[in-house]
C-alpha cells in the first residue's frame, strides 16, 4: 500500500477538471492506497458547509483524509466551524509532514 498526497488548488466551480482529480483520489483509495486530499488556495471553497459538500463527503467515505489549509480558509473568510462534515482544517505543514514520510505528492 502506497501513500498518496493529492493537493487540490482549484475550485471545482471554476475548474471542471477538479472532479477528475477527486476521481483519481477515489480510485487510489479503492485500490487500497492511503490517500490524503489537501485543499489549498481556491481549492478550499467546496469545504464550506453547504457548498458541493457531497463530493468531499464521498471522498471521506472512501477513507480519504480531507484537509483544508487553514491559511487559505482565513484568507477567504471561511470559519473552521463552518466546514462541511468530513473536512478538517490543517496547517500547510501537513504537506511537508507527508513528503517527509514518503507520500507521493501530486498537485492540481
Amino acid at each position, binding site marked *: 500500500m502506497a501513500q498518496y498526497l493529492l493537493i487540490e*488548488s482549484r475550485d471545482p466551480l471554476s475548474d471542471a477538471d477538479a472532479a477528475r482529480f477527486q476521481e483519481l483520489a477515489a480510485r487510489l483509495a479503492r485500490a487500497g492506497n492511503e490517500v490524503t486530499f489537501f485543499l489549498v*488556495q*481556491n481549492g478550499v471553497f467546496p469545504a464550506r458547509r453547504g457548498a458541493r459538500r457531497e463530493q468531499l463527503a464521498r471522498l471521506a467515505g472512501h477513507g480519504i483524509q480531507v484537509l483544508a489549509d487553514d491559511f487559505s480558509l482565513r484568507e477567504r473568510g471561511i470559519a473552521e466551524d463552518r466546514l462541511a462534515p468530513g473536512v478538517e482544517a490543517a496547517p*500547510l505543514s501537513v*504537506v511537508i509532514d507527508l*513528503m*517527509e514520510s514518503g507520500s507521493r505528492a501530486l498537485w492540481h
Partner: protein
Amino acid sequence: MTGKRTLTFVLMDPPYENARTTTALRLVDIAVRRGHDVNVFAYEGAVYVPFARQAPHPNAVHGRDVEQEDHPNPKDWVSAILQEAGRRGAKVDWVQCGLCVDERGAAECIPGLRRGSPADLVAFVASSDNALVIPTR
C-alpha cells in the same frame, strides 16, 4: 522532525500572478525551518520569482507612498528563505533554468542562486527523498 530530508520543489509560475507562488514559497519556508535541504528548480515564468530588479512602488490611486504601500516582492521572500536556511543549517540549492532565463532576459537574480538546465532537475529528483511539481495549467 524525524530526520533531515532532501526535498525538491519545481516551480513554474511567474510572480505576482497566482497564489501558487505564495504557496510554493510557504512550503519551501516550512521545509527550511525544519532544517531540511531543499532543491528548487525554477523554470518558465518562475525564473522571475527571484529577479533582482523587482522594486516596491507607491500607490497613487490610494495616496500611499512606497513605505505606506509596503509592497511585497518575491525576491525578498526568496532572500529571507536563504537567510533562514543559513540559520537552520539547511541547504537551499535554487536552480534557474538557463533556457528560460535567456528567453526572458531574466539573468539578474538575487545572490545565492545558480543557473542550470533541465539536467539539474533530473539530478534533483534522483537525489531527493521526495519531490513536488507545482505546475501552471
